[in-house]
């Protein structure tokens, strides 16, 4: 057999920028959304309004945060969840309030959904003492443990085994709680996922592995970094699985409720792929050459917040005036949060040494 020319050899799949390089790879294909209306999903009019309130809060909070970042009010990384709000919202409404949730660094939406106020969130971004993590964590480490939100984590895939540990403790104590771990499509490629998928199945842990597949891992399209359909990873572990349309809060709510009930009843893990899209760059410094404007627009045209708003009006759950008043109150809340964050004090210098150990006077090596 003729030896292949070395110049033809390729390893990584290609596909960014130019057609010669394979053309831009499309991020994700969405499955169909649920056709059910809110009543058949068991959602009340008030719950729908609360959902809208929550999603709009997440959106405006981050838009204001971005503005403050650009003004130089705080530094570090800022990864925005904009576009993905239906996932946090649908899930939190579907779960019990004491079910345990843990996520990666794209965590603001999750925090707001699980009881972190706009004030505490914005103050955390600013690194202030009044922030949800006392200013020690910043954007990537929002947490509200008393509301069972165990925080955002910065090492890709690092928090996946931890979610199963939360589930282990829940099963151990037979407390009826379940856990869910949210991570990106990029994290699917980490060994931690595969070890934990096996453990969780073997030990029948009440946990849900959820991939928020937003099409990209930084500048790499999902199809360029991982093989086959992500959801099919479940098969190798005999795990129950589902694919959900993450641009529709009803679809997320419906399916996550069903799954949560199943996990609670049978104490068996699920692997779920929720397809979605992030509108902004990976973080604040991202030229976004890896995708087309058209693709972004395609998703913005099916924006989950706009979709819920149209539903609310079409189904006469709210009229335009009620929606405006929700939006205005959030606008005020978020602006007040900026002022609150700005005016809050930085942590005292002595805080550098707190939260390291449980003791009052721990040992520090000098």
């Amino acid at each position, binding site marked *: 057999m003729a030896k292949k020319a070395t110049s033809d050899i390729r390893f990584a799949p290609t596909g960014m920028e130019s057609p010669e390089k394979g053309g831009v790879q499309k991020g994700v294909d969405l499955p169909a959304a649920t056709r059910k209306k809110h009543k058949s999903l068991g959602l009340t009019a008030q719950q729908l309004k609360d959902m809208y309130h929550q999603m709009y809060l997440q959106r405006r909070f981050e838009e204001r945060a971005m503005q403050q970042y650009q003004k130089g009010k705080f530094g570090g990384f800022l990864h925005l969840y904009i576009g993905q709000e239906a996932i946090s919202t649908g899930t939190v409404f579907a779960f019990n309030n004491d079910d345990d949730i843990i996520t990666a660094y794209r965590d603001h939406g999750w925090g707001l959904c699980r009881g972190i106020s706009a004030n505490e969130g914005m103050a955390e971004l600013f690194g202030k003492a009044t922030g949800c993590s006392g200013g020690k964590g*910043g954007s990537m480490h929002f947490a509200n443990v008393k509301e069972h939100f165990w925080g955002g984590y910065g090492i890709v895939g690092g928090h996946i085994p931890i979610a199963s540990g939360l589930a282990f403790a829940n099963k151990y104590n037979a407390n009826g709680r379940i856990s869910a771990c949210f991570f990106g499509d990029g994290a699917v490629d980490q060994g931690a996922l595969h070890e934990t998928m096996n453990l969780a199945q073997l030990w029948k842990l009440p946990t849900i592995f959820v991939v928020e597949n937003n099409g990209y891992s930084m500048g790499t399209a999902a199809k360029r970094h991982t093989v086959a359909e992500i959801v099919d990873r479940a098969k190798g572990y005999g795990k129950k699985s589902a694919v959900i349309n993450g641009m529709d809060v009803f679809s997320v709510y419906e399916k996550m409720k069903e799954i949560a009930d199943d996990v609670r009843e049978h104490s068996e893990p699920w692997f779920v792929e929720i397809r979605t899209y992030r509108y902004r760059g990976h973080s604040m410094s991202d030229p976004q050459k890896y995708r087309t404007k058209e693709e972004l627009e395609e998703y913005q045209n099916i924006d989950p917040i706009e979709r819920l708003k149209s539903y609310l009006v079409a189904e006469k759950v709210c009229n335009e005036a009620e929606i405006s008043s929700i939006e205005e109150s959030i606008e005020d809340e978020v602006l007040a949060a900026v002022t609150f964050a700005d005016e809050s004090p930085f942590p005292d210098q002595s805080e550098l040494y707190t939260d390291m150990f449980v003791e009052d006077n721990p040992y520090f090596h000098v």
Partner: protein
Amino acid sequence: MAVLQFREALKHAIDEEMSRDERVFVMGEEVAEYNGAYKVTEGLLDKYGYRRVIDTPISELGFAGLGVGAAMNGLRPIVEFMTFNFAVLAADQIINHATKVKYMTGGQADCPIVFRGPNASAGQLGATHSVAYDSMYAHFPGLKVIYVSEPNDAKGLMKSAIRDENPVLFMESEQMYGLKGEVSDEEDFIIPIGKGKIKREGSDVTLVAHGKMYHLAVQAANELAKDGIECEIIDPRTVKPLDLELILKSVKKTNRCIVIDEAHPFAGFAAEIGFLIQREAFDYLDAPVLRVCLPDVNAPFSKPLFDAWLPSPKQIIDAVKQVSY
């Protein structure tokens, strides 16, 4: 001499070695089509193609180990970690495999591989993105550890690292990539691994500082010179093997030494230098060897806490004054 950015100096070194030796290839997250998270590999894909400049998934353990196997099987991988904070996931391959395979096989297999990327903190990136790992890796036998401070060193030492027949860890800093400096345009410019450099001469006190900390030492020395205190700055450039001779020679002249280290204090680089100086130059010391390093706590996010956490020129100045009696 040409004035180059740190990232350009690294790229030139990699480029020259890739054109010189077809076995050299680059892999890592976003190194190819995105041109590198910090643009160190910019343009290399266009020049060398998809066979030799390879994007990886976020699978640090997998691709680091794959590099080890490729090195054992005759290639010369350059494995980029987006930062060494993420190389922790690959530590098994670096510590248990790359450093030990030659020994375990009684010398049958070599592992000529370079693991490179930014080390330590880069502003307010929080607890998991801010650790300096050079001391930790230097602890293990079988590895060479380099953490450079200037473009010229980056170029000369990167070329040496790629040519080295052993596993080499090459550390950089996100905050230095844009730093400009004169870089030798001598053909095939090489700096040998294990050779430090006197970067400022002085007779009053020796400052040992490498990586990002070198620049703090320069600031402190400039301030101290206004008070008539002349610091000698030694940049070891290579953490291991260490150019102890150069440090000792300087300490024997100044009789005082401050080590500036970006790691935490316990069993770090500074501790090691301090121990060696007392063992080899005890009689020459007019004051205890002091260190300026990170406190024994994690990196905080909040700006004022972070500023208090990171070593500062002021701390160096205070330490120098403390030993200048």
